[in-house]
């Protein structure tokens, strides 16, 4: 299966938020293969978040196709896309990723509550979900019991982002999409955070799509896609 090597294939895409407005995104193709760590660079307003929503199947394009893992998202239907996203994609956002009323562990295992596939994959490796969460947190240097016992709102921003990474990784989804996860971190913390993220993705064979406006992070990735250039290419 050649498609097993292709994680993301976007063709002839055009997306507008308002029907008669200008397209936010319009490009011929974007191709990402398994295991790649792709840096998608774009200033704010360049359509980064829109691209992520398209990849997650939260929205569908007016024109063109978005295929993830060989599945054409627009043929799945709304409920199918929700399930697909839950099963195959982990997300990390800019900040405030966590539900304040859940413990750290509960935040990490949240995707397993909505996706049977990720629950089963997590349980195939660990005896229970708590162990799976703790193992991931340990890999991300967050196993300190004192930190785990605290409400998530009392964790530092860096700790919160690592919890969010653990949540995106649990149950080994094929794709992790990170939207500016480092922008709230101090400069010297960014690199350490990214190294942790990449190491985990590599270990589990997870493809990483990292979106940021910050060009200084570029060297840490396999490949860079500049959204502005991509968009321009179609004209």
């Amino acid at each position, binding site marked *: 299966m050649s498609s097993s090597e292709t994680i993301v294939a976007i063709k002839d895409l055009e997306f507008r938020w308002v029907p008669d407005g200008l397209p936010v995104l319009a490009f011929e193709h974007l191709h990402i293969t398994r295991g790649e760590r792709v840096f998608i660079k774009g200033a704010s307003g360049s359509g980064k978040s829109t691209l992520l*929503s398209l990849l997650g199947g939260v929205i569908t394009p007016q024109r063109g196709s978005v295929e993830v893992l060989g599945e054409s998202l627009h043929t799945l239907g709304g409920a199918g896309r929700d399930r697909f996203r839950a099963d195959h994609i982990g997300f990390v956002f800019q900040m*405030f*990723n966590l539900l304040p009323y859940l413990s750290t562990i509960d935040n990490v295992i949240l995707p397993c509550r909505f996706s049977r596939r990720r629950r089963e994959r997590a349980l195939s490796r660990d005896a229970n979900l708590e162990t799976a969460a703790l193992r991931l947190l340990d890999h991300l240097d967050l196993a300190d019991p004192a930190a785990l016992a605290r409400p998530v709102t009392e964790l530092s921003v860096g700790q919160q982002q690592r919890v969010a990474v653990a949540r995106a990784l649990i149950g080994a989804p094929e794709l992790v999409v990170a939207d500016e996860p480092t922008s709230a971190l101090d400069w010297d913390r960014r690199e350490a955070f990214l190294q942790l993220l990449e190491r985990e993705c590599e270990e589990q064979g997870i493809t990483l799509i990292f979106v940021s406006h910050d060009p200084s992070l570029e060297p840490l990735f396999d490949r860079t896609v500049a959204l502005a250039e991509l968009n321009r290419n179609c004209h």
Partner: protein
Amino acid sequence: MPIFSLTIKSLWNRRYTAFLTLLSIALSVTLLLGVERVRTEARSSFANTLSGTDLVVGARSGPIQLLLYSVFRIGNATNNISWQSYREIADRPEVAWSVPLSLGDSHKGFRVLGTNQDYFKHYRYGNKQPLAFAEGAVFTDLYDAVIGAEVARKLHYRLGQEIVLAHGAGAVSFVQHADKPFHIVGILKRTGTPIDQTVHVSLQAIEAIHVDYRDGAPLPGHHISAEQARSMDLEPKAITAFLVGLHSKVATFRLQRWINEYPEEPLLAILPGVALQELWDMIGVGERALLAVSTMVLLVGLTGMLTVLLASLNERRRELAILRSVGARPWQLFLLMVSEASCLTALGAVFGIGLLYLVLLIARPFIESQFGLQLGVGMLTPHELNLLVLLMGGGLLIGAIPAWRAYRYSLADGMSIRV
């Protein structure tokens, strides 16, 4: 179900506002159910004031006025019935029993009722319950009195105690029948009817204390002592009203008509059940207004919940986006909001019911002694359960409003977190 545990944890996270919302719902539930209990009890105790009597007869006035003074001891009769008329009607073949009533005197604010022993035999209240004695027995001597439970409780009266009746029905009377004191020989069990607040004596006793009166005032220089009165002719010349029981209900309307067309004097016979219903319809307006107000309070409680839920929704868009990103479907977010509203409503109802029973337990003795209402502390009635089901339905409907908005947000925002 992951959504339900999320609901609980999310609510717990916002427990202070959630608790206040819950409290406002609980209080309005308590109010609604409390009003409902008082209403039902007032209605039934009202309708049960007199039962087993086929006709109440008095001088011609209005049916409600007759009912008020003869049964509820409220107000005064416009006129009396002559003893001859009473005897003529009482002796008719279709009449099984009759009880004469003579009102007009009082004792420390309680009405005095002149009647005969048949009263204790035939009077029925509630579900055709007869009168029962807590202590003592029916009057036998001329100066014996039987008092209602409330009279005994309020004035701390015991058997054998001597009391003096006052002339006239006012709470404060300047003319006392001090020369002819009565002995308490019986105390009735509580009935929850005006009987509890009545002092019963014989018709002859009423005659005896007025033997030296003319036109409602004592005759000056013409005093007759209690012992002298005993030897006089004490057959009453007039009574205020009388109760009639018939052998057969079929004869009720015929006799009623006969009495209403009685040629010797203008009389009025009423069916007590019908008159009670008419009277309740009249005074029931207040009771319905009370229900309307408590329903409004409940609506205010629910609207308060809506306000809180909608206000919190904006801060929770982030939470909704996070849930979407980890795989929650839009309908699950809808469910999250609805179950939150239902949870608040249900907990509010449970708290409200608990509070109701607490209030009932505490206030019951007071309400019973002050208003003669015996509020039940029993299980919820089907009617009350209906109200609670309506409340839950209202809570669900109200919860659907923020839920729908959350659903729309989650479709429009997707996973992008907008603050």
